[in-house]
């Protein structure tokens, strides 16, 4: 009973201390910001340096030509 009363006191205290948000209205259209984010992410995805592609190609070729190296590669990962 005392525990319940104390819990209720804490709840009341919290309600008094931190008021509910009154202003929850969005003041501006966020679509331009969204478009920027989409562009950034798309640029990031397309911005892989050429040597990374070269490395991936060499690695793929090695794995295709020498499948026996796959367990060794997995071991070292």
């Amino acid at each position, binding site marked *: 009973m005392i525990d319940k009363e104390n819990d209720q006191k804490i709840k009341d205290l*919290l309600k008094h201390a931190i*008021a509910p948000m009154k202003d*929850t209205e969005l003041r501006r*259209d966020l679509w331009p910001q969204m478009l920027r984010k989409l562009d950034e992410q798309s640029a990031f995805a397309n911005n892989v340096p050429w040597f990374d592609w070269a490395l991936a190609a060499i690695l793929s070729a090695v794995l295709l030509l020498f499948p026996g190296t796959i367990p060794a590669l997995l071991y070292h990962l």
Partner: protein
Amino acid sequence: MELLAQFAAGDLEAFEVLFRQHQKEVYAWIVRIVRDSGIAEDLTVETFWRIYKSRARFRPDGNFRAWARRIATNAALDHLRGARHETELPDDLAGAPGEDPAVRGERRKHIKEAFHQLPAKYRLVATLALIEEEPYESISQAVGISVALVKVRVFRAVRMLRKKLSPLGVEATAK
């Protein structure tokens, strides 16, 4: 229905329509959790970015609003986990009659600190249930847990706050 199917298929125009239809509601939900308009704007964009990325997993016959709210809640929760969160406290914090303003200020500081020390998942449900007075059912759907678990988290949050505030004498003078 057709709009949702177009969105799920990756149509950017359909996504823009959905964005404009739901951005206010998503923002309003997030700002009640993070309590900062600038952060809420960023998280609204982050929410829609996550929505756009996972559009292939969305079922066009599903509830977009509920799905968006769930993703928004996760984005807000990630923010609470990762950042030190500052909550605006009102000036008219209730105190004992005739209480010294310095004492009242000290109490506000203690409450603020204690609340921010709660683990993010407890702070999330405590904010929504106790401060924003959102129904448990609604919190349950947004967080993706059962109503019973929401109640448990609220209960634990209150107990943790009590434990932190009791030694400071805050509880004894609360009205």
